[in-house]
């Protein structure tokens, strides 16, 4: 409890992820759902970087990264997660703009033309 360990960061990641899922499930605004998706991606990022940090040991696994240094796989993965999140937010907002131009509302319950 006094030494910040891996479990503390995993607890933060778990709480972020469940907040993201709760946002997706309870929002009717499409941009609110996009914010929930961003929360889930952040939770995954915190998870990855926490595992990367706590896997640095003096043993064999510790020094097999780039240039013989520690492993940085989690950090680079999270970097690409951030890039993909930005790209996905741009496309999602373009779709939302088109939806708003056609329906004059950003409410997701108005998107029911394909309903059977």
């Amino acid at each position, binding site marked *: 409890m006094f030494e910040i360990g*891996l*479990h*503390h960061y995993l*607890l*933060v990641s778990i*709480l*972020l*992820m*469940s*907040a*993201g*899922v*709760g*946002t997706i499930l*309870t929002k*009717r*605004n*499409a941009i*609110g759902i996009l*914010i929930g998706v*961003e*929360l889930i991606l*952040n939770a995954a*990022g*915190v998870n990855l970087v926490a595992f*990367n*940090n*706590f*896997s*640095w*040991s003096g*043993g064999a*696994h*510790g020094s097999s*990264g*780039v*240039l013989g*240094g*520690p492993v*940085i796989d989690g*950090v*680079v993965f999270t*970097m690409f997660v*951030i*890039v*993909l*999140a*930005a*790209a996905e*937010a*741009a496309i999602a*907002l*373009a779709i*939302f*703009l*088109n939806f*708003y131009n056609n329906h*004059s509302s*950003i*409410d997701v319950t108005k998107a029911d033309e394909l309903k059977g």
Partner: protein
Amino acid sequence: MLFYAFALVTVVSAWAIVVSQNIVRMAVYLLLTLGGAAGLYFMLHAELLAAIQLIVYAGGTLILIVFGVMLTSKNPFIRTEASSTEIATGVMVAIALAALMLLAVLNSPLETGAGVEQGYHQIRDVGHGLLSTYLVPFEIAAVLLLVVMIGAAYMARRRTD
């Protein structure tokens, strides 16, 4: 101690997004969440990633979301809220998911390493890695960003008809 500050800011802002009904307030709480996550990255010896998170995520994606809020709100005081049963069900599912994941994490043996030496700067390794070990994802991400830029600009263009 600093960990508890950043973690508290991150988690409380994230759950404030769930509770809030106003879309602009949700964007502000997301900004606080992203800032708290960047602080956590600083504590995990990932300085370059924390800077990238602040510049790209909080300073790019969040601004994009705020632009989206501006362009899709006819009435500035509009409040679209779900019914209370939907909100209760959603929050219960989120809490159940959190409990399930917490159970999984606490019951699994996770062994941690000894940490990294002081004065380690990660930016050199990341820079070398992006051009040697992680070259293929780097190039693919570049092509993907080009495609996304063209696609989003085309989809969101002003229709003159």
